[in-house]
C-alpha cells in the first residue's frame, strides 16, 4: 500500500520546490534590503540607522523565565527522546522552541553564542558574564553529558530553522563528512580567539538565522541564511553539522554521555530498515569486514602519530602566530589604528565612520597605536594557542580514524546524533513496543547483507 509514496514526489518536483524556495529567498533578501535601505526620515543629519545586532535588554524576571523555559525544554526533549520515543512530540516541542527561543527571544542569548561570553569573561578580568549566559552555556552541555544532544533535538532555534526545511536529504559520503566535520573546529577556534581578545563575537555576527528571528539583517547575512535554508532542503541541517562551534562541545559531551538514545528499544536484528532513516548520517552501519592486519608497520605508524603530536601542535601554533597580523584586524581598535594610519599616509579613500568618530574624539594617536600594538601582541599569543589547538584537533582526529571499530549491529554515532527520533519508527521492534505489530511479525534480515543475528542494543 505504500508503493505510491516512493515516486509521489520525484526529483523533478523536488527540484521545482527548491526553485520556488530560491525564488522566495531572493524576494526575502530584497525585502531585507528594502527594510535596511531606508534611513529614518531625517533629511539633514545624514544619519544611517545601524544594522540590528542585538535585541533590547530584558528584565531579570524574563531572564529567569528564559532559564526556566530552557531547562524545561531540555527536560522535555530528553523525556520525549528517551522515554516516549515520539518523533511527533519532539517535532511539536521543536516548533515551540523555534517560536520561543527564536522569534520571541530573537535568538539571544543562545547557547551557541554564549560560549563567546564565557571565553571573553575568562580572558577579560573586567567583564562579568551574566548568570543567564552561564546557564545557557552550561545547561545544554550538562544534558548532553547525561543524555546526548537532546538540545539539538528540539531546543536549539538555529537547528529548528533548518530542521523544518529538510525535504529531500542526500547522504554525505563518510570521507567528505569527516573532512567537513573539521570545519566546526576551525570556526570554534576563531570564535574563541576573537572572543578572548575582545575583537568580536564572530558566531553572533555570522549567525545566519538571527535575521529571520528579528526581521532585519544585513543583505549578506540574509543571503547566508537563505543559502543555508535552501541547502538545508537537501543537506540536512548543514549549519549544525558543518559549522556550529557549540556543536563541537556538544559532540564531546555526547560522546561521553551517560545515557544515549538508541535506534531500537530492544534488540537489533540488522534488518537494515533504519539504514537511510537518519538525514544527518549519524547511523553507523555494522562493520564486519576485517581490518587490515595489524603489522609492525601499522603499530609504528600509530606510534609515530603520537610522537609527532607535539611537533604538529607546535608547527600549527607557529602558523597561527604568523597569522596574528591578519587576525588582529578583526579587532575594531587595530582596524581603526591601521585605517587611521593608512588614511594619514594617503592610502585610503573615503573616511569611514569609525575614523570620523576617532578624529572627533580627540583621542591622541599615540594612545590608539599603543592599544593596537598591545592587541596585536595578544593576537600573537592567541595565534599560538589557536593554532596549537587546531593542530591538536586535526592530529587527534587522524589518530581517531586509525582506531579499530568492529560492530556487528546498527548503532548511533553518539557525537553526531541529534536525538531527533527520526529513526525510531523505522525499527520493527519499536512497532512491537508500541503494540502495532506482534513480535513474530518482525522481519528477518535480508539474505544478502551478511548481517545475521540479534543484538540487545
Amino acid at each position: 500500500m505504500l508503493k505510491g509514496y516512493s515516486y509521489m514526489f520525484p526529483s523533478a518536483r523536488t527540484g521545482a520546490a527548491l526553485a520556488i524556495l530560491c525564488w522566495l529567498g531572493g524576494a526575502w533578501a530584497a525585502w531585507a534590503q528594502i527594510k535596511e535601505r531606508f534611513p529614518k526620515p531625517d533629511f539633514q543629519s545624514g544619519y544611517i540607522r545601524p544594522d540590528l545586532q542585538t535585541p533590547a535588554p530584558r528584565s531579570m524576571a524574563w531572564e529567569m523565565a528564559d532559564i526556566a523555559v530552557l531547562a524545561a525544554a531540555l527536560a522535555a526533549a530528553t523525556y520525549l527522546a528517551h522515554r516516549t520515543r515520539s518523533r511527533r512530540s519532539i517535532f511539536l516541542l521543536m516548533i515551540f522552541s523555534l517560536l520561543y527561543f527564536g522569534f520571541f527571544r530573537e535568538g539571544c542569548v543562545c547557547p551557541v553564542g554564549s560560549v563567546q561570553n564565557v571565553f571573553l569573561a575568562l580572558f577579560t578580568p573586567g567583564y562579568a558574564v551574566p548568570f543567564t549566559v552561564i546557564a545557557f552555556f552550561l545547561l545544554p552541555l550538562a544534558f548532553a553529558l547525561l543524555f546526548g544532544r537532546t538540545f539539538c533535538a528540539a531546543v536549539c532555534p538555529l537547528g529548528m530553522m533548518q530542521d523544518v526545511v529538510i525535504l529531500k536529504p542526500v547522504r554525505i559520503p563518510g570521507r567528505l563528512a569527516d573532512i567537513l566535520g573539521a570545519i566546526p573546529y576551525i570556526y570554534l577556534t576563531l570564535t574563541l580567539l576573537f572572543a578572548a581578545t575582545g575583537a568580536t563575537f564572530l558566531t553572533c555576527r555570522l549567525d545566519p538565522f538571527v535575521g529571520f528571528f528579528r526581521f532585519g539583517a544585513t543583505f549578506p547575512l540574509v543571503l547566508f541564511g537563505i543559502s543555508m535554508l535552501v541547502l538545508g532542503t537537501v543537506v540536512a541541517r548543514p549549519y549544525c553539522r558543518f559549522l556550529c562551534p557549540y556543536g563541537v562541545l556538544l559532540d564531546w559531551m555526547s560522546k561521553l554521555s551517560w545515557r544515549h538514545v538508541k535506534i531500537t528499544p530492544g534488540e537489533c536484528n540488522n534488518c537494515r530498515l533504519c539504514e537511510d532513516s537518519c538525514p544527518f548520517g549519524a547511523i553507523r552501519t555494522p562493520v564486519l569486514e576485517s581490518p587490515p592486519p595489524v603489522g609492525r608497520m601499522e603499530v609504528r605508524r600509530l606510534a609515530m602519530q603520537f610522537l609527532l603530536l607535539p611537533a604538529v601542535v607546535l608547527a600549527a601554533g607557529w602558523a597561527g602566530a604568523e597569522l596574528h597580523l591578519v587576525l588582529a584586524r578583526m579587532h575594531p581598535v587595530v582596524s581603526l589604528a591601521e585605517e587611521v594610519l593608512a588614511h594619514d599616509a594617503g592610502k585610503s579613500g573615503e573616511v569611514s565612520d569609525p575614523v570620523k568618530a576617532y578624529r572627533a574624539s580627540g583621542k591622541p594617536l599615540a594612545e590608539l597605536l599603543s592599544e593596537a600594538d598591545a592587541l596585536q601582541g595578544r593576537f600573537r599569543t592567541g595565534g599560538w594557542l589557536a593554532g596549537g589547538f587546531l593542530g591538536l584537533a586535526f592530529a587527534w582526529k587522524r589518530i581517531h580514524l586509525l582506531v579499530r571499530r568492529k560492530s556487528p549491529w546498527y548503532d548511533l554515532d553518539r557525537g553526531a546524533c541529534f536525538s531527533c527520533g527520526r529513526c525510531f519508527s523505522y525499527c520493527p521492534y519499536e512497532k512491537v513496543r508500541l503494540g502495532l505489530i506482534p513480535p513474530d511479525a518482525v522481519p528477518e534480515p535480508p539474505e544478502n547483507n551478511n548481517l545475521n543475528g540479534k543484538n540487545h542494543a
Partner: protein
Amino acid sequence: MPEDRKTLSVSPGAAPASDSLLQAARRTAVVAAVLAAILSTLMTAHYLQTRSADPLKSQALARLMLQLRDNPEDAALKEQIRALDLLARRAYFLNQWQIRTGSFLLFAFLLVFLASMKIIHSRRLALPDLGREPGGGSYWEEKLLARRYLLLLGTGLGLVAVALGLVSESELKKYGSLSARREPAGPPGATAGPDPVASPKQAASAFPGLEALQQNWPGFRGPDGNGVAYAAGVPAEWDGRSSKNILWKVPVPLPGKNSPVVWGSRLFLSGADKKSEVVFCFDRESGKILWQSELKDIPGAPAEPPRISEDTGYAAPTLAVDGRFVCAVFSTGNVGCFDMDGKRIWARNLGIPDNHYGHASSPLIFEDLLLVPFDQNSGGRLVALRVGDGSPAYEKRREVQISWASPILARTPARPELVLSANPLVAAYDPRTGEELWQVKCMSGEVGPSPAYADGMVFAVNEYARLAAIRLGAKAEMAWEYLEDLSSVSSLLATRDYVFNVASYGAVSCFQAKTGERHWIHDFPNGVYSSPVLAGGLVYMIDINGITHIFKADKTFQPVRSNELGEKTFTVPAFMPGRIYIRAESNLYGIGEKSS
C-alpha cells in the same frame, strides 16, 4: 523491497497515500507556493520601483532647498517645501507599511508551504536499497581516505596561514619602524644657511634656526607668532590712493582672511571659496604669481565645505613657512604641505572642524613639526604632524572650549614653550612632545585673540574675560589682570616693558608689562580686526578701513602717522627689510620706498 518491510516502517498513525490529508497538503502547498511567488514578484517590483524613485532623495526638494538658501525669507517657498517634505514622509511611511505587511504575508505563505511539504514528505520513507552493500563501501578504505584528506586539509591550512602571515603588512608595524628611525631628530637651532630659500637637499636634512626665522616672516604675526618684526628700514609712509610708496598692487585670485607670510624672495598666502582651496606664491619684488597650487583629492576631505561665517571665510588660518616647506590649513580641516616650488609634498584631512564661525587658528612650524591647534566644539586638541611627510607625531587632547586663537612660541630661558589660549585656560606645551608644561585658568568666552610673550611673561586676553599677565618660573601664576576695553579679535603685542591691547572698536590701551598699570588708552575712529606689530620701536596697527596707524611703543601715546591704503583690511602685514606687505580685502600690496 518486500511489502511487509515497508508496512512495518510506516509511522504509527500514518495514513494511506490517497488519504484526504495528503491531498489537502499537496493542494495547499501549490496554492501557498503560487501566492508566495506572486507576492515575491510584487515585492521585488516594488523594491526596484522605490529604489529608482526614492522619495527621500527628491531632486525637487533639493532644488527648492537651494532656492531657499538664496531667498531665506520667501514664505511661499517655505510652504512649498513643507508640503513636499510632508509628501515625502508620507511616501516613506506608506512604503514602510507595505514592506512590513508584505513581509508578514510572505512569511505566512512560506510557513504554510513548508508545513504542507513537511506533511507530504513525512509520508515518504527513506528505505534502503537492499541491493547495495550496507554502508555503501569499504569502511577501512573510507577511513584511510578521510585521514589522507584531513592531512591535506590541515597542511594546506597551515601553509595558507604562514603565507598570509608572511605577505601581510601592518600599517602599525611600518609606523613603528618609521617612528624609530625618526627618533634621533636633529638638535634644535640648526640653521638653514645664508640663503633663506633652502635647496631640496637642505629641505630634507635641516630645519631653519632662530636667526633665519627672524630674517623672514614665517607665520601669523611673524617669527614665533609674537607680532615682533626684526626687519630694519621698514617704511613708515605710504598712500594707497596716490600710490605713494606702493611698489606694486596685485589682485588676489581667491578670497581669504589669512595674512601673508614671506621666506626669502617669496611671499605666500592662501585663498578659498566653496569649491577650491589654493595656495599662492608671489614674487615679493614684483608681485607676480610664481605658482599656485590647489589642494584637492585629499582622502577624507568633505564633499561640501562646512558652514562658516563670511567674517571668517574658508581660508582664515595663515600659512606657515620655514624655507623648506609651506603649509596651509583650511576651514575644511584640510592640511597641505608644499615645497618652495609649489610641489605638493603631502596633504591630509584632520576631520571637519566643528566650528560655527569657521576654523581660524593658524599653524606654526617648530623644527620638524607642524603644530596645528584644533580647538573645536567637539573638543580641543593640538595636532603635531611631521612637516616632511605629514605623519602624526603626537596629538594632545585639550580640555578647552572652541577657540580661534593661534599659538605662539615662547622661547623662555629654560625651554621653548608653545602657548595656547582658549576658554578656560592659557596653557603651554612642550612643542616637541605635546607634554603640558603649565596651565592657568583665566579665560572665558569665545577666545579669538592670540597670546603674546615677552621677558618671562605671557599675556592673554579676551573680551568679557580679562587681560591676564602670567609670570613664568617654577610655577606659572597670574601676575596681574585688567578687565576693561579688552580685545575680542586683535591679538596682544608685548615688549619687555609694555603690553598693547586693541579692542575691536578701536580703543588701544598700553599697560606696564610687569605691574599692569595702564599708561594710556586712545580711541581710534575705526574698528580693528588686524593685530598690532612692533617694528623698529614703532607699533603698526591697521584698522578695518585699511588705515595703518603708527605710534611709538612708549608709556605715552605718541602718534607717528597714519597711512591710508584705500581698501578694507583685516589681516596682519608681513614685515621684511625695507618692505611691508599687506593683504587687503581684494588686493595684495607691496610697500617700500620707491627708488628714484
